C-alpha cells in the first residue's frame, strides 16, 4: 500500500501523533477497566471519573485537534464543555450535600 521508503517515512511523520493518541487512550482505558474489574479501594469512582475526563481532553485536544483551531473555535468548544461542567457540578453538589 505504501511502497517506497519515502512514502512510509512521510506516512509515519503524519501518523505519529494519531498513533500515540490512540495508544494513550488505550492505556487510560486499561486503567479504568482494571479499576472497574478489581475495585481496589472504596472511593475508586473518583479516580475512574478523573481518568475518563483526561481521555475526553485527549480526544478534544489531539484527535479533534482543538489546539490547532482558531481562537473562536477554541472558545466555542471550551464554553460548551464548561457549561456541561456547571450542569454536573451544580446538580451533584445538590444531591451530594443532602442529608
Amino acid at each position, binding site marked *: *500500500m505504501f511502497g517506497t521508503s519515502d512514502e512510509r517515512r512521510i506516512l509515519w511523520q503524519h501518523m505519529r501523533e494519531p498513533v500515540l*493518541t490512540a495508544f494513550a487512550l488505550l492505556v487510560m482505558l486499561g486503567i*479504568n477497566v482494571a479499576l*472497574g*474489574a478489581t475495585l481496589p479501594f472504596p472511593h475508586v469512582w473518583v479516580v475512574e471519573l478523573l481518568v475518563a475526563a483526561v481521555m475526553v481532553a485527549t*480526544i478534544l485536544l489531539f484527535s*479533534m485537534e482543538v489546539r490547532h483551531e482558531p481562537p473562536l473555535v477554541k472558545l466555542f468548544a471550551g464554553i460548551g464543555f464548561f457549561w456541561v461542567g456547571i450542569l454536573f457540578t451544580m446538580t451533584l453538589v445538590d444531591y451530594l450535600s443532602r442529608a
Partner: protein
Amino acid sequence: MSAGATDGAVGVKLVSHFATVEQQKRAAVLGMWAWLLTELLLFAGLFLTALILRLLHPEAIQEAARHLKFWIGAVNTVVLIGSSLTMSGAIQLSRLGWQRGMVRFMLATAALGTLFLLLKGYEYYADYQEHMMPFLSDRPYELKDSPPSRLFVNLYYVATSLHGLHLLTGITILLVMTWQAGRPGFLSRHQNRIEIFGLYWHFIDLIWILAFPTLYVLNR
C-alpha cells in the same frame, strides 16, 4: 503500488456565499462544533441522570449494572478508539492528497463502526435472554422487585441506542462519502469534508468514552 495513485491537488472549491476559502473552511468547522455541542448537552443530561440514580439508589443500580456486559463494553471502547485512529489516518492522507490510502482508511473506519454495532447487538441479545429489558410487556423483568433498577436499565437503553443511532448515521454518511471520495478530483474540491466528518466521528468516540464509565464502570 503507490498509496496515492490518484494524487492531485488538495483544496476546497469556493462557494458563492463566502469571500475566501479560508472563511468557508472556518465557518464549516464552527458550524460543526455548534451542532456537536447541542449533542453534548443531549447526552450530558442522560449521563447526569444515571449518576443521580446511582447516588439515590446505590444498591439497586449496582444490582442492575452487574447484568451489563462489562467486557463487551470494554472491547467496544477499544474498537471505537481504533476507529478514531483510522479516521485520523484518513484525514492525514487527505491532507497529503493520497486518495487511495484515504479511501482504505475510511473503509476501515466504517468496518470498525459496524463491528461496534454488531457487538452491541449481541449485548442486547444477551440482555434479552436474561430478561433484562423492562420495557417489554410480554417478557417478565428479571429485577421486577426493584423499581429504581428499572429506571436505570431503561436509561441505559436510551443512552446506548441513541449513541448507536449516531454511529449508524455516521457509518452511512461515511460510506456515501467514501463512494464520492474515490472519484478523481474529490480532494481538489472537497478535502475539508473529510476533516468535518472526522470531527463528528471523533465526537461519537468521545461520547462512548463518557458512556462506558458512567454506565458500566462506576456502578460496579
